[in-house]
């Protein structure tokens, strides 16, 4: 089952490698991806292992509080739809830094933006690789964690290096379809188990029995507060919500997707498609999670691989070994596709922002050089992620790394994107200060939070730093801006604003 997916995706890579030539093809699939295709790809990029395995596990173990993640992950798309997608598509070329560099001093801004893109992508990617390694280690005990991580890494390097954005996009689309299909099927099986009687289903959810220590307890899993406990529960939830709502609009691997479509209107259509898919998926996580809690039971899951295995174990219980293999293959495909998407956004950012525009001041010395650098970067980034994932080992907390990625994206990227589009006085100092303060604040706060066992007594009580680091990112950007004036940046604001608002002169689809 899994080998079939690998074979199909390698076939796509080969096809894409033959079709694509040139920079715009490699980085943006020639801007010829259609609205629904990009919608599926966005959804595919977004529904990572953290969603399929992680949320199902959280709901299975903590009930309602896990569902709070699902809600945030969908509502976040309103920020993308209403505020960033169309202006970014209109004013940029390949990366979010294009928009920032439009009227600011490009070298420092691109260097910082590239750094924050690489940071976000790497944290996100390591999380996925660790998840993949752990999954394979449980499914195929004969394969070691190291071998699994190396295998995932090697495949994703092949997709990106040879296929570029076109292959990556199609890998995402296929994976999104598989994931949706698997989730719907699994949810139907859960409801079939309860005779399609929602009353009976929720009745069972309200009386979930499991062992806590040595005591058998029965809890209402619809009750909030089983995961986010007082005294910081509510603030922690708000903090997480802020990171999700404002972080999605700053995730580099989501933002690059809007450059693969022909125009802003298609970008909008693709967000709507993505919202439909993601929304259905996250509503169904209720059935996966609550189903695992009621049908499989928390004790069984703990004994068979831990909470991340809730969805696959549910499939095993309801559909037998064949379905178990199918769902595991989907989970694996999910990880593979998300990692490929992350790799391409990281390597695009490095090649386009850092190499061409910072090191070589915007001059491509030889045609095709930028693509060559991106391929090398993809290789290096992939190799790095393999090494770090192996060093972290299968025990690393996957949710923590993904949470960090969202918080960094929200604190560092979103403030500068919004300000450079909508605040005339915003300038280079503001962008650099905003990116730096958001990046630093979120990373430092996570390191001293209870999510990491770095300190015996955490200095910062919340699991997610968003509620503090996001305002710090905005304040840093405002403070830096007020340090001085930059007439040139202000003079360019009208141009950027008109371009972003109307789409005049935006990059068009490549000819064939």
């Amino acid at each position, binding site marked *: 089952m899994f080998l079939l997916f690998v074979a199909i995706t390698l076939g796509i890579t080969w096809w894409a490698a033959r079709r694509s030539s040139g920079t715009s093809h490699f980085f943006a699939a020639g801007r010829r991806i259609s609205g629904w295709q990009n919608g599926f790809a966005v959804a595919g990029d977004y529904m990572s292992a953290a969603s399929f395995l992680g949320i199902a596990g959280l709901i299975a173990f903590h009930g309602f509080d896990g569902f709070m993640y699902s809600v945030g992950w969908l509502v976040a798309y309103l920020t993308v739809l209403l505020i960033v997608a169309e202006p970014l598509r209109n004013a940029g070329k390949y990366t979010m830094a294009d928009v920032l560099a439009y009227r600011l001093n490009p070298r420092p801004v691109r260097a910082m933006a590239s750094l924050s893109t690489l940071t976000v992508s790497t944290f996100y990617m390591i999380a996925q690789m660790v998840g993949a390694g752990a999954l394979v280690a449980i499914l195929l005990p004969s394969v070691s964690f190291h071998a699994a991580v190396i295998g995932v890494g090697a495949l994703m390097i092949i997709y990106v290096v040879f296929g570029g954005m076109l292959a990556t996009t199609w890998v995402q689309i296929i994976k999104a379809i598989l994931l949706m299909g698997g989730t719907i099927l699994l949810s139907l099986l859960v409801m079939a188990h309860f005779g399609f009687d929602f009353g009976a289903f929720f009745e069972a959810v309200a009386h979930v029995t499991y062992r806590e220590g040595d005591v058998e307890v029965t809890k209402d899993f*619809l009750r909030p507060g089983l995961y986010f406990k007082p005294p910081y529960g509510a603030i922690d939830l708000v903090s997480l919500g802020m990171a999700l709502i404002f972080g999605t609009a700053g995730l580099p691997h989501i933002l690059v997707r809007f450059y693969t479509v022909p125009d802003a209107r298609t970008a909008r259509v693709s*967000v709507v498609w993505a919202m439909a898919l993601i929304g259905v998926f996250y509503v169904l996580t209720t059935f996966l999670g609550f189903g695992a809690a009621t049908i499989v039971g928390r004790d069984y899951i703990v004994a068979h691989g831990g909470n991340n295995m809730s969805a696959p174990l549910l499939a095993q219980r309801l559909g037998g070994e064949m379905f178990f293999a199918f769902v595991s293959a989907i989970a694996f495909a999910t990880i593979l596709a998300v990692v490929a998407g992350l790799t391409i956004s990281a390597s695009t950012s490095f090649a386009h922002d850092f190499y061409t525009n910072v090191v070589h001041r915007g001059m491509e010395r030889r045609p095709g050089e930028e693509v060559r650098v991106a391929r090398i970067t993809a290789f290096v980034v992939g190799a790095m992620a393999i090494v770090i994932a192996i060093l972290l080992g299968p025990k690393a907390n996957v949710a923590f790394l993904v949470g960090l990625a969202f918080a960094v994206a929200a604190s560092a990227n979103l403030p500068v994107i919004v300000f450079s589009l909508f605040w005339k006085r915003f300038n280079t100092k503001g962008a650099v200060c905003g990116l730096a303060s958001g990046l630093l604040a979120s990373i430092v706060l996570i390191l001293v939070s209870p999510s990491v066992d770095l300190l015996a007594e955490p200095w910062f009580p919340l699991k997610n730093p968003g509620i503090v680091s996001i305002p710090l990112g905005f304040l840093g950007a405002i403070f830096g801006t007020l340090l001085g004036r930059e007439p040139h940046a202000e003079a360019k604001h009208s141009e950027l604003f008109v371009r972003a608002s109307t789409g*005049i002169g935006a990059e068009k689809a490549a000819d064939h």
Partner: protein
Amino acid sequence: MSDTTKIKAASTDLTPVVAAPTDVARLTHRAPVPPHEQTADQDVDVVDWDRVAAAEDFKSLIRAKVRFVVPASAFFIVYYFALPLLVGYAPGLMNRKVVGVVNFAYVFALSQFFMAWTIAALYVRAATRFDRMEKDIIARLLRRGKPAPGGN
């Protein structure tokens, strides 16, 4: 002959003229060339952006966008953060059973999905109007887009 094509292209195609095919815009101040050193190619700016930004049709487009986007964003942010806040500070309300054993917290969380889809649908409807206004503005600019002084 090639010069005329170039100028013609510049007047109708507003894609930024760039130094490298990979750069988004030469219009950044990477190399602040003093005006007397600029080549004709660098000196061309087909649109007076400040005037466009101040024009009535552009301002009404922005007003229309702001009229939709600002209240919609405010609404979804308030509605979304009401969920964690109520969960934290009004547990009594959230645990009240609404339908059978299903409590208010779950119904409210589920309603967030429908809220998001509704706002997205409303935005798409509003955006077709923005698209029309944008097209009119672009058409007006391209009609007026005269070659730079000294061209022709």
